[in-house]
Protein backbone atom coordinates (compact mmCIF):
# COMPACT_ATOMS: atom_id res chain seq x y z
CA UNK A 1 0.00 0.00 0.00
CA UNK A 2 1.37 3.40 -0.97
CA UNK A 3 0.32 6.42 1.09
CA UNK A 4 0.43 10.11 0.27
CA UNK A 5 0.90 10.96 3.94
CA UNK A 6 3.21 9.50 6.55
CA UNK A 7 0.78 10.50 9.30
CA UNK A 8 -1.92 8.46 7.63
CA UNK A 9 0.47 5.58 7.11
CA UNK A 10 1.45 5.57 10.78
CA UNK A 11 -2.15 5.49 11.90
CA UNK A 12 -2.98 2.65 9.51
CA UNK A 13 0.03 0.66 10.69
CA UNK A 14 -1.02 1.06 14.32
CA UNK A 15 -4.50 -0.26 13.59
CA UNK A 16 -3.10 -3.10 11.51
CA UNK A 17 -1.16 -4.31 14.55
CA UNK A 18 -4.40 -5.20 16.30
CA UNK A 19 -5.44 -8.85 16.18
CA UNK A 20 -7.75 -9.70 13.30
CA UNK A 21 -7.21 -6.37 11.54
CA UNK A 22 -5.50 -6.34 8.16
CA UNK A 23 -4.14 -3.37 6.21
CA UNK A 24 -7.36 -2.76 4.28
CA UNK A 25 -9.59 -2.85 7.33
CA UNK A 26 -7.12 -0.60 9.12
CA UNK A 27 -7.35 1.93 6.28
CA UNK A 28 -11.14 1.83 6.39
CA UNK A 29 -11.13 2.53 10.14
CA UNK A 30 -8.68 5.40 9.77
CA UNK A 31 -10.62 6.99 6.92
CA UNK A 32 -13.73 6.73 9.05
CA UNK A 33 -12.02 8.54 11.92
CA UNK A 34 -10.81 11.28 9.53
CA UNK A 35 -14.41 11.99 8.57
CA UNK A 36 -15.50 12.33 12.19
CA UNK A 37 -15.50 15.55 14.19
CA UNK A 38 -12.44 16.28 16.37
CA UNK A 39 -14.59 15.93 19.51
CA UNK A 40 -15.69 12.45 18.56
CA UNK A 41 -12.15 11.33 17.84
CA UNK A 42 -11.03 12.91 21.09
CA UNK A 43 -13.63 10.86 22.94
CA UNK A 44 -12.41 7.72 21.22
CA UNK A 45 -8.73 8.22 21.97
CA UNK A 46 -9.47 9.26 25.55
CA UNK A 47 -11.44 6.10 26.13
CA UNK A 48 -8.50 4.02 24.96
CA UNK A 49 -6.01 6.08 26.88
CA UNK A 50 -8.03 5.83 30.11
CA UNK A 51 -8.62 2.16 29.56
CA UNK A 52 -4.91 1.47 29.56
CA UNK A 53 -3.95 3.93 32.29
CA UNK A 54 -6.72 3.39 34.77
CA UNK A 55 -7.72 -0.22 34.36
CA UNK A 56 -6.79 -2.35 37.32
CA UNK A 57 -6.78 -5.93 38.28
CA UNK A 58 -8.88 -6.90 41.26
CA UNK A 59 -6.56 -7.52 44.19
CA UNK A 60 -8.65 -10.48 45.18
CA UNK A 61 -9.48 -12.40 42.01
CA UNK A 62 -7.34 -10.71 39.29
CA UNK A 63 -10.43 -9.91 37.29
CA UNK A 64 -10.30 -6.63 35.39
CA UNK A 65 -11.78 -3.88 37.49
CA UNK A 66 -12.21 -0.11 37.92
CA UNK A 67 -11.53 -0.28 41.60
CA UNK A 68 -9.16 -2.03 43.99
CA UNK A 69 -11.66 -4.86 44.40
CA UNK A 70 -13.87 -5.75 41.43
CA UNK A 71 -17.64 -5.47 41.51
CA UNK A 72 -18.09 -9.25 41.62
CA UNK A 73 -15.87 -9.65 44.67
CA UNK A 74 -17.47 -6.68 46.43
CA UNK A 75 -21.02 -7.83 45.75
CA UNK A 76 -22.34 -8.88 49.17
CA UNK A 77 -25.15 -10.94 47.67
CA UNK A 78 -22.72 -13.38 46.03
CA UNK A 79 -21.68 -16.51 47.85
CA UNK A 80 -18.09 -16.32 48.95
CA UNK A 81 -18.05 -20.06 49.81
CA UNK A 82 -17.38 -21.03 46.20
CA UNK A 83 -14.54 -19.92 43.99
CA UNK A 84 -14.57 -20.67 40.29
CA UNK A 85 -11.08 -20.91 38.80
CA UNK A 86 -10.87 -19.71 35.19
CA UNK A 87 -8.14 -19.09 32.64
CA UNK A 88 -9.00 -15.56 31.56
CA UNK A 89 -11.38 -12.66 31.84
CA UNK A 90 -13.23 -13.95 28.80
CA UNK A 91 -14.24 -17.05 30.74
CA UNK A 92 -15.61 -14.86 33.55
CA UNK A 93 -17.76 -13.05 31.01
CA UNK A 94 -18.92 -16.36 29.51
CA UNK A 95 -19.89 -17.83 32.87
CA UNK A 96 -21.53 -14.61 34.04
CA UNK A 97 -23.67 -14.62 30.90
CA UNK A 98 -25.18 -17.94 31.93
CA UNK A 99 -26.60 -16.28 35.10
CA UNK A 100 -26.25 -19.68 36.76
CA UNK A 101 -23.29 -19.00 39.00
CA UNK A 102 -23.46 -16.88 42.08
CA UNK A 103 -20.07 -17.39 43.65
CA UNK A 104 -16.72 -15.67 43.21
CA UNK A 105 -13.96 -16.13 40.63
CA UNK A 106 -10.24 -16.46 40.43
CA UNK A 107 -8.54 -15.59 37.14
CA UNK A 108 -5.32 -17.57 36.60
CA UNK A 109 -4.16 -15.60 33.58
CA UNK A 110 -3.38 -18.74 31.56
CA UNK A 111 -2.79 -22.48 31.94
CA UNK A 112 0.39 -24.40 32.67
CA UNK A 113 2.36 -25.27 29.53
CA UNK A 114 6.14 -25.52 29.88
CA UNK A 115 6.43 -25.71 26.09
CA UNK A 116 4.96 -22.23 25.80
CA UNK A 117 7.12 -20.97 28.65
CA UNK A 118 4.21 -20.81 31.07
CA UNK A 119 4.98 -22.39 34.42
CA UNK A 120 3.06 -22.10 37.69
CA UNK A 121 5.11 -19.00 38.58
CA UNK A 122 3.72 -17.07 35.64
CA UNK A 123 0.15 -17.66 36.78
CA UNK A 124 -1.88 -16.36 39.71
CA UNK A 125 -1.62 -19.63 41.60
CA UNK A 126 0.11 -18.34 44.72
CA UNK A 127 -2.57 -15.72 45.19
CA UNK A 128 -5.21 -18.43 44.83
CA UNK A 129 -3.56 -20.56 47.52
CA UNK A 130 -3.31 -17.52 49.80
CA UNK A 131 -6.94 -16.72 49.19
CA UNK A 132 -8.02 -20.24 50.09
CA UNK A 133 -6.05 -20.05 53.30
CA UNK A 134 -7.60 -16.73 54.27
CA UNK A 135 -11.13 -17.01 52.96
CA UNK A 136 -11.63 -20.73 53.65
CA UNK A 137 -14.12 -21.39 50.84
CA UNK A 138 -16.09 -24.65 50.82
CA UNK A 139 -15.69 -25.43 47.15
CA UNK A 140 -13.29 -24.77 44.33
CA UNK A 141 -14.74 -25.22 40.83
CA UNK A 142 -12.29 -25.57 37.98
CA UNK A 143 -13.70 -24.20 34.74
CA UNK A 144 -10.65 -24.68 32.51
CA UNK A 145 -10.37 -25.82 28.90
CA UNK A 146 -10.84 -29.60 28.67
CA UNK A 147 -7.39 -30.43 27.32
CA UNK A 148 -4.09 -31.82 28.57
CA UNK A 149 -2.73 -28.46 29.76
CA UNK A 150 -6.01 -27.76 31.54
CA UNK A 151 -5.67 -31.09 33.33
CA UNK A 152 -2.04 -30.37 34.24
CA UNK A 153 -3.15 -27.11 35.82
CA UNK A 154 -5.99 -28.75 37.76
CA UNK A 155 -3.79 -31.59 39.11
CA UNK A 156 -1.04 -29.17 40.02
CA UNK A 157 -3.30 -26.94 42.08
CA UNK A 158 -5.16 -29.88 43.57
CA UNK A 159 -1.86 -31.36 44.76
CA UNK A 160 -1.13 -28.16 46.64
CA UNK A 161 -4.50 -28.29 48.38
CA UNK A 162 -4.47 -31.91 49.48
CA UNK A 163 -4.51 -31.14 53.19
CA UNK A 164 -7.26 -28.51 52.98
CA UNK A 165 -10.85 -29.36 53.90
CA UNK A 166 -12.19 -28.23 50.57
CA UNK A 167 -14.40 -29.70 47.87
CA UNK A 168 -12.63 -29.56 44.51
CA UNK A 169 -14.75 -30.02 41.43
CA UNK A 170 -14.49 -29.50 37.71
CA UNK A 171 -17.14 -28.55 35.18
CA UNK A 172 -18.80 -31.51 33.42
CA UNK A 173 -17.31 -32.71 30.17
CA UNK A 174 -19.36 -34.35 27.52
CA UNK A 175 -21.90 -33.89 24.79
CA UNK A 176 -22.81 -30.29 24.09
CA UNK A 177 -26.40 -29.36 24.79
CA UNK A 178 -28.43 -29.18 21.60
CA UNK A 179 -25.76 -31.23 19.82
CA UNK A 180 -26.39 -34.39 17.90
CA UNK A 181 -24.97 -37.65 19.15
CA UNK A 182 -23.83 -38.97 15.79
CA UNK A 183 -21.68 -35.89 15.24
CA UNK A 184 -19.96 -36.06 18.62
CA UNK A 185 -16.40 -37.33 18.43
CA UNK A 186 -15.79 -40.74 19.94
CA UNK A 187 -13.71 -39.53 22.85
CA UNK A 188 -16.35 -37.06 24.01
CA UNK A 189 -19.05 -39.66 23.65
CA UNK A 190 -17.01 -42.28 25.53
CA UNK A 191 -16.44 -39.78 28.33
CA UNK A 192 -20.11 -38.92 28.46
CA UNK A 193 -21.00 -42.56 28.84
CA UNK A 194 -18.50 -43.21 31.61
CA UNK A 195 -19.58 -40.01 33.43
CA UNK A 196 -23.28 -40.57 32.89
CA UNK A 197 -25.85 -38.94 35.14
CA UNK A 198 -28.87 -40.30 37.00
CA UNK A 199 -31.95 -39.04 35.18
CA UNK A 200 -33.52 -37.78 38.45
CA UNK A 201 -30.59 -35.54 38.95
CA UNK A 202 -30.62 -34.38 35.37
CA UNK A 203 -34.34 -33.55 35.38
CA UNK A 204 -34.23 -31.55 38.59
CA UNK A 205 -31.27 -29.55 37.31
CA UNK A 206 -33.19 -28.47 34.29
CA UNK A 207 -36.37 -27.41 36.02
Amino acid sequence: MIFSSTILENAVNEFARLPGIGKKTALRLVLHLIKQSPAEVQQFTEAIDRMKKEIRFCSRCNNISDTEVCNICSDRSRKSETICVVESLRDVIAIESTQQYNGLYHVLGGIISPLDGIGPDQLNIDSLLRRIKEEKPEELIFALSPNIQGDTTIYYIQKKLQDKPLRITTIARGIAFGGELEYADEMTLARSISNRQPVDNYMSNNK
Partner: protein
Amino acid sequence: MLLLQNITLVQFKNSLHSSFVFGERIVGICGNNGVGKTNLLDAIYYLCFTKSYFSKTDVQNVRFGSKGFRIEGNFVRNEKSEKIVCVLRENGRKECSVNDEAYIKFSAHIGRLPCVMVAPDDVEIITGGSEERRKFLDYTLSQLDPAYLQALMDYNRILQQRNYLLRTFADSPHRDMNLLDVLSQQLLEPGNRVYESRNELLEFFLPIVRELYETIAGSGERLEISYQSQLQTDSFENLLRKSRDKDILLQRTQIGIHRDDLQFTLNGENFKNIASQGQRKSLLFALKLAEFQILLKHNGFAPILLLDDVFEKLDDNRMRNLLHRICVENNGQIFITDTHCERLKETLEQLQVRHQIIELEAQ
Protein backbone atom coordinates in the same frame (compact mmCIF):
# COMPACT_ATOMS: atom_id res chain seq x y z
CA MET B 1 -15.32 -54.36 0.34
CA LEU B 2 -13.17 -51.32 -0.26
CA LEU B 3 -12.46 -50.06 -3.77
CA LEU B 4 -11.03 -46.85 -5.12
CA GLN B 5 -12.83 -45.99 -8.37
CA ASN B 6 -11.00 -42.90 -9.47
CA ILE B 7 -8.56 -40.28 -8.29
CA THR B 8 -7.67 -36.75 -9.38
CA LEU B 9 -4.39 -35.10 -8.47
CA VAL B 10 -3.83 -31.36 -8.82
CA GLN B 11 -0.34 -29.97 -8.20
CA PHE B 12 0.44 -32.97 -5.99
CA LYS B 13 4.16 -33.75 -6.20
CA ASN B 14 5.16 -33.90 -9.88
CA SER B 15 1.64 -33.91 -11.29
CA LEU B 16 0.06 -30.75 -12.64
CA HIS B 17 -3.37 -32.20 -13.17
CA SER B 18 -4.05 -35.86 -13.71
CA SER B 19 -7.02 -38.16 -13.36
CA PHE B 20 -7.13 -41.94 -13.24
CA VAL B 21 -10.06 -44.30 -13.43
CA PHE B 22 -9.62 -47.71 -11.85
CA GLY B 23 -11.92 -50.28 -13.37
CA GLU B 24 -10.33 -53.45 -12.00
CA ARG B 25 -9.42 -54.78 -8.63
CA ILE B 26 -5.79 -55.27 -9.62
CA VAL B 27 -4.09 -52.22 -11.05
CA GLY B 28 -0.57 -52.33 -12.49
CA ILE B 29 1.17 -48.99 -12.92
CA CYS B 30 4.30 -48.87 -15.04
CA GLY B 31 6.60 -46.30 -16.59
CA ASN B 32 10.13 -44.99 -16.41
CA ASN B 33 11.74 -43.52 -13.33
CA GLY B 34 10.36 -40.15 -12.37
CA VAL B 35 7.05 -40.34 -14.20
CA GLY B 36 5.09 -40.38 -10.95
CA LYS B 37 4.29 -44.01 -10.16
CA THR B 38 5.15 -43.72 -6.51
CA ASN B 39 3.44 -40.33 -6.32
CA LEU B 40 0.21 -41.90 -7.51
CA LEU B 41 0.44 -44.53 -4.77
CA ASP B 42 1.26 -41.82 -2.26
CA ALA B 43 -1.82 -39.84 -3.32
CA ILE B 44 -3.96 -42.91 -2.64
CA TYR B 45 -2.24 -43.31 0.70
CA TYR B 46 -2.88 -39.64 1.43
CA LEU B 47 -6.62 -40.09 1.02
CA CYS B 48 -6.53 -42.94 3.56
CA PHE B 49 -4.31 -41.26 6.17
CA THR B 50 -4.62 -37.53 5.41
CA LYS B 51 -0.85 -37.48 5.08
CA SER B 52 1.92 -38.61 2.81
CA TYR B 53 3.74 -41.87 3.38
CA PHE B 54 7.03 -40.35 2.30
CA SER B 55 7.27 -36.65 3.07
CA LYS B 56 7.22 -35.28 6.58
CA THR B 57 5.73 -31.88 5.74
CA ASP B 58 2.95 -30.95 3.34
CA VAL B 59 5.04 -28.26 1.68
CA GLN B 60 7.15 -31.07 0.20
CA ASN B 61 4.06 -32.52 -1.48
CA VAL B 62 3.38 -29.45 -3.58
CA ARG B 63 4.47 -29.40 -7.20
CA PHE B 64 7.57 -27.29 -7.69
CA GLY B 65 6.66 -23.67 -8.34
CA SER B 66 3.01 -24.10 -7.33
CA LYS B 67 1.15 -23.32 -4.14
CA GLY B 68 -1.21 -25.82 -2.59
CA PHE B 69 -2.52 -29.13 -3.91
CA ARG B 70 -5.69 -31.11 -4.12
CA ILE B 71 -6.39 -34.84 -4.16
CA GLU B 72 -9.87 -36.17 -4.73
CA GLY B 73 -10.89 -39.80 -4.81
CA ASN B 74 -14.12 -41.75 -4.96
CA PHE B 75 -14.17 -44.93 -2.94
CA VAL B 76 -16.79 -47.59 -2.50
CA ARG B 77 -16.82 -48.88 1.05
CA ASN B 78 -19.33 -51.54 1.99
CA GLU B 79 -21.41 -50.65 -1.08
CA LYS B 80 -21.60 -46.98 -0.13
CA SER B 81 -19.74 -44.37 -2.10
CA GLU B 82 -17.39 -42.08 -0.23
CA LYS B 83 -15.81 -39.04 -1.78
CA ILE B 84 -12.63 -38.05 -0.02
CA VAL B 85 -11.00 -34.71 -0.72
CA CYS B 86 -7.74 -33.46 0.77
CA VAL B 87 -6.69 -29.92 -0.02
CA LEU B 88 -3.70 -27.87 0.97
CA ARG B 89 -4.74 -24.24 0.46
CA GLU B 90 -2.37 -21.60 -0.81
CA ASN B 91 -2.09 -20.17 2.70
CA GLY B 92 -0.88 -23.55 4.00
CA ARG B 93 -4.18 -24.55 5.59
CA LYS B 94 -5.11 -28.17 5.17
CA GLU B 95 -8.66 -29.43 4.75
CA CYS B 96 -9.98 -32.95 4.42
CA SER B 97 -13.55 -33.94 3.88
CA VAL B 98 -15.61 -37.06 3.41
CA ASN B 99 -18.71 -36.67 1.22
CA ASP B 100 -18.24 -32.89 1.43
CA GLU B 101 -18.33 -32.85 5.20
CA ALA B 102 -15.08 -31.40 6.53
CA TYR B 103 -13.18 -33.15 9.31
CA ILE B 104 -12.48 -31.11 12.40
CA LYS B 105 -9.93 -33.64 13.57
CA PHE B 106 -8.04 -35.50 10.86
CA SER B 107 -7.31 -38.30 13.31
CA ALA B 108 -11.01 -39.24 13.11
CA HIS B 109 -10.40 -40.36 9.51
CA ILE B 110 -7.67 -42.87 10.34
CA GLY B 111 -8.91 -46.44 10.05
CA ARG B 112 -11.96 -45.58 7.95
CA LEU B 113 -10.14 -46.51 4.76
CA PRO B 114 -7.62 -49.17 5.82
CA CYS B 115 -4.52 -49.26 3.68
CA VAL B 116 -1.11 -50.96 3.69
CA MET B 117 1.87 -49.64 1.75
CA VAL B 118 5.03 -51.59 0.94
CA ALA B 119 7.83 -49.37 -0.35
CA PRO B 120 11.56 -49.98 -0.92
CA ASP B 121 12.66 -47.79 1.98
CA ASP B 122 10.53 -49.82 4.39
CA VAL B 123 13.49 -52.16 5.06
CA GLU B 124 14.27 -49.43 7.58
CA ILE B 125 11.70 -51.14 9.80
CA ILE B 126 14.19 -53.99 10.08
CA THR B 127 17.55 -52.27 9.72
CA GLY B 128 16.79 -48.81 11.10
CA GLY B 129 16.33 -47.45 14.61
CA SER B 130 13.58 -48.47 17.01
CA GLU B 131 11.53 -45.43 15.99
CA GLU B 132 10.71 -47.09 12.65
CA ARG B 133 9.38 -50.19 14.36
CA ARG B 134 7.24 -48.19 16.78
CA LYS B 135 5.89 -46.22 13.84
CA PHE B 136 4.93 -49.44 12.10
CA LEU B 137 3.15 -50.70 15.22
CA ASP B 138 1.43 -47.35 15.75
CA TYR B 139 0.10 -47.19 12.21
CA THR B 140 -1.28 -50.69 12.51
CA LEU B 141 -2.89 -50.08 15.89
CA SER B 142 -4.26 -46.67 14.96
CA GLN B 143 -6.18 -48.22 12.10
CA LEU B 144 -7.66 -50.80 14.46
CA ASP B 145 -8.54 -48.57 17.38
CA PRO B 146 -9.09 -44.79 17.34
CA ALA B 147 -8.70 -44.67 21.12
CA TYR B 148 -5.15 -45.97 20.70
CA LEU B 149 -4.27 -43.08 18.42
CA GLN B 150 -5.78 -40.63 20.89
CA ALA B 151 -3.83 -42.14 23.81
CA LEU B 152 -0.63 -42.03 21.78
CA MET B 153 -1.14 -38.38 20.81
CA ASP B 154 -1.92 -37.45 24.42
CA TYR B 155 1.16 -39.34 25.61
CA ASN B 156 3.41 -37.57 23.12
CA ARG B 157 2.05 -34.17 24.05
CA ILE B 158 2.57 -34.73 27.78
CA LEU B 159 6.02 -36.20 27.11
CA GLN B 160 6.97 -33.07 25.17
CA GLN B 161 5.83 -30.87 28.05
CA ARG B 162 7.73 -33.02 30.54
CA ASN B 163 10.93 -33.02 28.52
CA TYR B 164 10.71 -29.30 28.03
CA LEU B 165 10.25 -28.80 31.76
CA LEU B 166 13.28 -31.01 32.44
CA ARG B 167 15.32 -28.84 30.11
CA THR B 168 14.29 -25.67 31.92
CA PHE B 169 15.41 -27.31 35.18
CA ALA B 170 18.99 -27.20 33.92
CA ASP B 171 19.26 -23.43 33.90
CA SER B 172 16.91 -22.54 36.70
CA PRO B 173 17.71 -22.65 40.39
CA HIS B 174 14.04 -23.06 41.21
CA ARG B 175 12.86 -26.54 40.25
CA ASP B 176 9.16 -27.19 40.52
CA MET B 177 9.10 -30.86 41.51
CA ASN B 178 5.35 -30.72 41.99
CA LEU B 179 4.84 -29.87 38.35
CA LEU B 180 7.19 -32.67 37.31
CA ASP B 181 5.20 -35.12 39.41
CA VAL B 182 1.93 -33.93 37.93
CA LEU B 183 3.23 -34.47 34.41
CA SER B 184 4.57 -37.92 35.39
CA GLN B 185 1.15 -38.76 36.79
CA GLN B 186 -0.51 -37.62 33.58
CA LEU B 187 1.77 -39.86 31.51
CA LEU B 188 0.58 -43.00 33.32
CA GLU B 189 -2.88 -43.42 31.85
CA PRO B 190 -2.09 -42.97 28.15
CA GLY B 191 1.27 -44.75 28.60
CA ASN B 192 -0.30 -47.83 30.14
CA ARG B 193 -3.05 -47.78 27.54
CA VAL B 194 -0.52 -47.82 24.69
CA TYR B 195 1.52 -50.55 26.40
CA GLU B 196 -1.51 -52.78 26.87
CA SER B 197 -2.67 -52.30 23.29
CA ARG B 198 0.77 -53.09 21.90
CA ASN B 199 0.98 -56.19 24.07
CA GLU B 200 -2.46 -57.35 23.07
CA LEU B 201 -1.80 -56.84 19.36
CA LEU B 202 1.62 -58.48 19.36
CA GLU B 203 0.34 -61.57 21.09
CA PHE B 204 -1.49 -62.65 17.96
CA PHE B 205 0.44 -60.52 15.47
CA LEU B 206 3.86 -62.08 16.00
CA PRO B 207 2.84 -65.69 15.33
CA ILE B 208 1.30 -64.54 12.03
CA VAL B 209 4.54 -62.78 11.08
CA ARG B 210 6.57 -65.90 11.91
CA GLU B 211 4.30 -68.11 9.85
CA LEU B 212 4.32 -65.74 6.88
CA TYR B 213 8.08 -65.44 7.03
CA GLU B 214 8.45 -69.20 6.85
CA THR B 215 6.14 -69.35 3.85
CA ILE B 216 7.94 -66.56 2.02
CA ALA B 217 11.49 -67.53 2.91
CA GLY B 218 10.59 -71.17 2.41
CA SER B 219 13.26 -72.69 4.56
CA GLY B 220 13.72 -73.99 8.06
CA GLU B 221 14.98 -70.69 9.42
CA ARG B 222 13.99 -70.07 12.98
CA LEU B 223 12.72 -66.51 13.25
CA GLU B 224 11.95 -65.16 16.70
CA ILE B 225 10.34 -61.82 17.39
CA SER B 226 9.94 -60.28 20.80
CA TYR B 227 8.37 -57.13 22.11
CA GLN B 228 10.66 -55.18 24.39
CA SER B 229 9.35 -52.55 26.73
CA GLN B 230 10.71 -51.14 29.95
CA LEU B 231 7.19 -51.53 31.30
CA GLN B 232 7.65 -55.31 31.34
CA THR B 233 9.96 -55.06 34.36
CA ASP B 234 7.86 -52.99 36.76
CA SER B 235 4.83 -50.71 36.84
CA PHE B 236 5.19 -47.53 34.80
CA GLU B 237 4.54 -45.51 37.96
CA ASN B 238 7.40 -47.12 39.89
CA LEU B 239 9.77 -46.88 36.97
CA LEU B 240 9.08 -43.19 36.47
CA ARG B 241 9.53 -42.47 40.15
CA LYS B 242 12.82 -44.35 40.24
CA SER B 243 14.23 -42.60 37.20
CA ARG B 244 13.26 -39.10 38.30
CA ASP B 245 16.75 -38.03 39.35
CA LYS B 246 18.26 -39.50 36.21
CA ASP B 247 15.66 -37.71 34.10
CA ILE B 248 16.57 -34.41 35.72
CA LEU B 249 20.26 -35.05 35.17
CA LEU B 250 19.88 -36.05 31.51
CA GLN B 251 17.07 -33.55 30.89
CA ARG B 252 14.96 -36.17 29.16
CA THR B 253 12.35 -38.73 30.12
CA GLN B 254 14.24 -42.02 30.17
CA ILE B 255 11.31 -44.32 30.82
CA GLY B 256 8.22 -45.03 28.83
CA ILE B 257 6.60 -46.54 25.79
CA HIS B 258 8.54 -44.12 23.60
CA ARG B 259 11.50 -46.45 24.17
CA ASP B 260 9.70 -49.66 23.13
CA ASP B 261 11.19 -51.87 20.45
CA LEU B 262 10.72 -55.09 18.55
CA GLN B 263 13.62 -57.47 18.38
CA PHE B 264 14.07 -59.93 15.54
CA THR B 265 16.42 -62.86 15.85
CA LEU B 266 17.27 -65.53 13.30
CA ASN B 267 18.57 -68.83 14.61
CA GLY B 268 19.37 -67.07 17.85
CA GLU B 269 21.32 -64.19 16.35
CA ASN B 270 20.37 -60.57 15.80
CA PHE B 271 18.49 -60.52 12.50
CA LYS B 272 19.75 -57.08 11.52
CA ASN B 273 23.37 -58.22 11.60
CA ILE B 274 23.23 -61.53 9.83
CA ALA B 275 20.29 -61.39 7.44
CA SER B 276 20.83 -61.15 3.68
CA GLN B 277 19.02 -58.61 1.51
CA GLY B 278 16.53 -61.29 0.50
CA GLN B 279 15.86 -62.34 4.07
CA ARG B 280 15.27 -58.75 5.10
CA LYS B 281 12.78 -58.34 2.32
CA SER B 282 11.06 -61.58 3.23
CA LEU B 283 10.66 -60.32 6.78
CA LEU B 284 9.41 -56.95 5.55
CA PHE B 285 6.73 -58.64 3.48
CA ALA B 286 5.84 -60.89 6.39
CA LEU B 287 5.32 -57.84 8.64
CA LYS B 288 3.27 -55.95 6.08
CA LEU B 289 1.16 -58.93 5.12
CA ALA B 290 0.50 -59.67 8.77
CA GLU B 291 -0.74 -56.09 9.09
CA PHE B 292 -2.87 -56.70 6.01
CA GLN B 293 -4.39 -59.85 7.50
CA ILE B 294 -5.16 -58.24 10.81
CA LEU B 295 -6.87 -55.29 9.16
CA LEU B 296 -8.80 -57.70 6.97
CA LYS B 297 -10.00 -59.64 9.97
CA HIS B 298 -10.87 -56.52 11.94
CA ASN B 299 -12.85 -54.77 9.19
CA GLY B 300 -14.33 -57.77 7.44
CA PHE B 301 -12.96 -56.46 4.13
CA ALA B 302 -9.43 -56.27 2.77
CA PRO B 303 -7.47 -53.04 3.07
CA ILE B 304 -6.11 -51.38 -0.06
CA LEU B 305 -2.63 -52.70 -0.76
CA LEU B 306 -0.05 -50.40 -2.32
CA LEU B 307 3.04 -52.22 -3.60
CA ASP B 308 5.75 -49.85 -4.72
CA ASP B 309 8.50 -51.28 -6.86
CA VAL B 310 8.41 -54.71 -5.22
CA PHE B 311 9.75 -56.80 -8.12
CA GLU B 312 13.36 -55.98 -7.37
CA LYS B 313 13.07 -57.51 -3.98
CA LEU B 314 12.71 -61.23 -4.39
CA ASP B 315 13.52 -63.91 -6.90
CA ASP B 316 10.89 -64.75 -9.52
CA ASN B 317 9.63 -67.84 -7.81
CA ARG B 318 9.09 -66.26 -4.44
CA MET B 319 7.58 -63.22 -6.06
CA ARG B 320 5.07 -65.30 -7.97
CA ASN B 321 4.05 -67.21 -4.85
CA LEU B 322 3.69 -64.01 -2.95
CA LEU B 323 1.61 -62.29 -5.62
CA HIS B 324 -0.59 -65.32 -5.92
CA ARG B 325 -1.22 -65.18 -2.25
CA ILE B 326 -1.96 -61.47 -2.31
CA CYS B 327 -3.90 -61.12 -5.55
CA VAL B 328 -5.73 -64.38 -5.96
CA GLU B 329 -6.40 -65.61 -2.46
CA ASN B 330 -8.10 -62.43 -1.28
CA ASN B 331 -10.42 -59.91 -2.82
CA GLY B 332 -8.89 -56.58 -1.84
CA GLN B 333 -7.83 -53.87 -4.25
CA ILE B 334 -4.14 -53.83 -5.14
CA PHE B 335 -1.95 -51.26 -6.83
CA ILE B 336 1.47 -52.44 -8.07
CA THR B 337 4.14 -50.29 -9.67
CA ASP B 338 7.05 -51.40 -11.84
CA THR B 339 9.48 -49.75 -14.22
CA HIS B 340 9.20 -52.60 -16.76
CA CYS B 341 5.79 -52.62 -18.41
CA GLU B 342 6.43 -55.96 -20.09
CA ARG B 343 7.43 -57.72 -16.90
CA LEU B 344 4.41 -56.33 -15.07
CA LYS B 345 1.99 -57.39 -17.82
CA GLU B 346 3.51 -60.83 -18.03
CA THR B 347 3.40 -61.40 -14.29
CA LEU B 348 -0.21 -60.30 -13.93
CA GLU B 349 -1.26 -62.40 -16.89
CA GLN B 350 0.37 -65.48 -15.40
CA LEU B 351 -1.77 -65.00 -12.30
CA GLN B 352 -4.88 -65.24 -14.44
CA VAL B 353 -6.79 -62.53 -12.64
CA ARG B 354 -8.63 -59.60 -14.20
CA HIS B 355 -6.40 -56.58 -14.12
CA GLN B 356 -5.73 -53.19 -15.63
CA ILE B 357 -2.43 -51.65 -16.69
CA ILE B 358 -1.78 -47.93 -16.54
CA GLU B 359 1.24 -46.79 -18.49
CA LEU B 360 2.53 -43.49 -17.23
CA GLU B 361 4.51 -41.18 -19.47
CA ALA B 362 6.63 -38.17 -18.65
CA GLN B 363 4.52 -35.04 -18.41
